[in-house]
């Protein structure tokens, strides 16, 4: 291990403790670490994305390989920078409209297919007798849950009477589902903490001994 790696371990340890100190309360150590994280990561990402997108997807293909199909990307990018001046701000709308509408156009069919049609397909129960009874019962529960949740999300009528009762069933399903998601995630989060403790109490002393 070279000296810079040892120094790096100690820097990382100090910063780890500084971030953990937020659990106590806001303090100068956390505040310094937070500001450092913001500055360093902002610098890191701007360089990273600049190389990955502007250089690789614009400068190299356009100026070295002569691929003019990628020229508009650079022009639209430059239009974005016109946002810095109030007088030219309106020009940047072309770039923003492009940016937002392109993704919207992509989303419409993808969402209809993945989030609606395929989910509906999976919700329709099979014919009774073709699957074991417990799987069939489960499929019926899923069907009832989906129907009642969709009624909960119905906005055009007050949730009173029958509609109110069905939407209550929907909320019940939602809460069980959210509870299940919560319970499932807890252990994963604990393992993250164990990872940081392992760094502080295992890797760091090992690094010290290796020195």
């Amino acid at each position, binding site marked *: 291990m070279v000296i810079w790696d040892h120094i790096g371990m100690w820097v990382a340890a100090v910063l780890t403790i500084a971030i953990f100190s937020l659990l106590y309360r806001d303090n100068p150590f956390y505040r310094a670490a*937070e500001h450092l994280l913001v500055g360093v990561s902002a610098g890191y990402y*701007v360089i990273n994305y600049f190389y990955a997108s502007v250089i690789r997807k614009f400068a190299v293909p356009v100026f070295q390989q002569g691929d003019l199909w990628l020229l508009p990307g650079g022009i639209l990018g430059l239009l974005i920078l016109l946002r810095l001046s109030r007088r030219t701000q309106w020009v940047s709308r072309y770039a*923003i409209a492009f940016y937002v509408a392109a993704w919207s156009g992509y989303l419409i*069919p993808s969402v209809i297919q993945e989030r609606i049609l395929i989910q509906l397909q999976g919700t329709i129960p099979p014919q009774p007798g073709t699957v074991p009874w417990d799987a069939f019962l489960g499929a019926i529960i899923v069907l009832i849950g989906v129907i009642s949740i969709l009624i909960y999300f119905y906005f055009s009528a*007050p*949730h009173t009477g029958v509609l109110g009762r069905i939407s209550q069933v929907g909320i019940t399903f939602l809460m069980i589902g959210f509870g*299940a998601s919560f319970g499932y995630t807890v252990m994963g989060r604990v393992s993250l903490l164990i990872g940081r403790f392992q760094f502080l109490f295992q890797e760091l002393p090992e690094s010290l001994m290796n020195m």
Partner: protein
Amino acid sequence: MISAWLTEERLGRTLLAAGQLPWRALAVGMILAVAVGAGMSPAPAAAQATSAESPPVHPTGEAALAPPGDETLGDSRVSGAQEADAVSDPAALVEPEILAEEVADQAEEDARFAWLQPVSGWFTPARFPTAVATLLFGITLLVLITRARGGRDLYIRRIAGLEAVDEAVGRATEMGRPILYSPGLDPMEEVATVASINILGQVARKAAAYETRLIMPNRDPIVMTVSQEVVREAFTEAGRPDLYDPNDIYYTTQSQFGYAAAVCGTMMRERPAANFFIGHFYAESLILAETGNATGAIQIAGTDSDSQLPFFICACDYTLIGEELYAGSVYLSREPLLLGALKGQDVAKVGILAILILWTILSFLGIDIRSWLG
């Protein structure tokens, strides 16, 4: 006479020539697509293969951060994948001699109609159900929006989280503390962020009316500049442009946890009396909501991320669940065009319920037409 002139070859060449012009080819392709699509049932294997080629809906890595409970969601996709595996090698299901004969016939057929191939390549038949659903939903939406233009007062049910906006802003005013608004982590292109910015406009109007400061840390530079405009406009409309400070709406960093650290620090130091977390969030949702809770702020959250909803529900006072986020801006603004769109969503929901019930009845009767859905 026309039929004599219009031979298969001529038709094919004409269509090919048309295909060289993108816009004409598009029209021809769409017409053929509808014709082809109407006559054939979609192949699940092909659908599966093409959907796998599409870029992920959330390229920022929601899937990686979503709780593993999501795995259970994909059962239809899992079965889809199994079907795809099962039919990916049709040769395995057919006798070799019959297969050879069929392959020869097919080759002959392909040779005869080879010049027609580019035309049939304008539409992916497996996407026919999606095309129909997209068209139906789009038309429904646009019709209802046009009707809403007439200014009819359309009803929307009460949404508790949005009713609480006044309470939250009022409380901040009483305590003389600011409001904090986080638009989530997604960039401007994501529709959840667009919905959040709409809600921001309404919250900013109330903040301006109550003369309360609004702080907004951002992870995306475009979201920041758009938010600055939206908030400035809201303060101007409320007659208090002097209260607007562009420095209160600022960029932090692209880093997910760098952003979380910055927002937590702001909450600890500025002690906002009301926190709004509205947009698409990832694992940092609980860090933000719990820190806000520790500062004693009233918290209103809203997200379409089903994996983060449980955390907001536990740690916030009010939560807009899923689609309520999209209904939020309509609810607060009562803008007729947006109301029309919300009605369109409800009509689609009724259609979905009808499909679920009808398809279930048919399934019970032994008629399985689930493949019609894609």
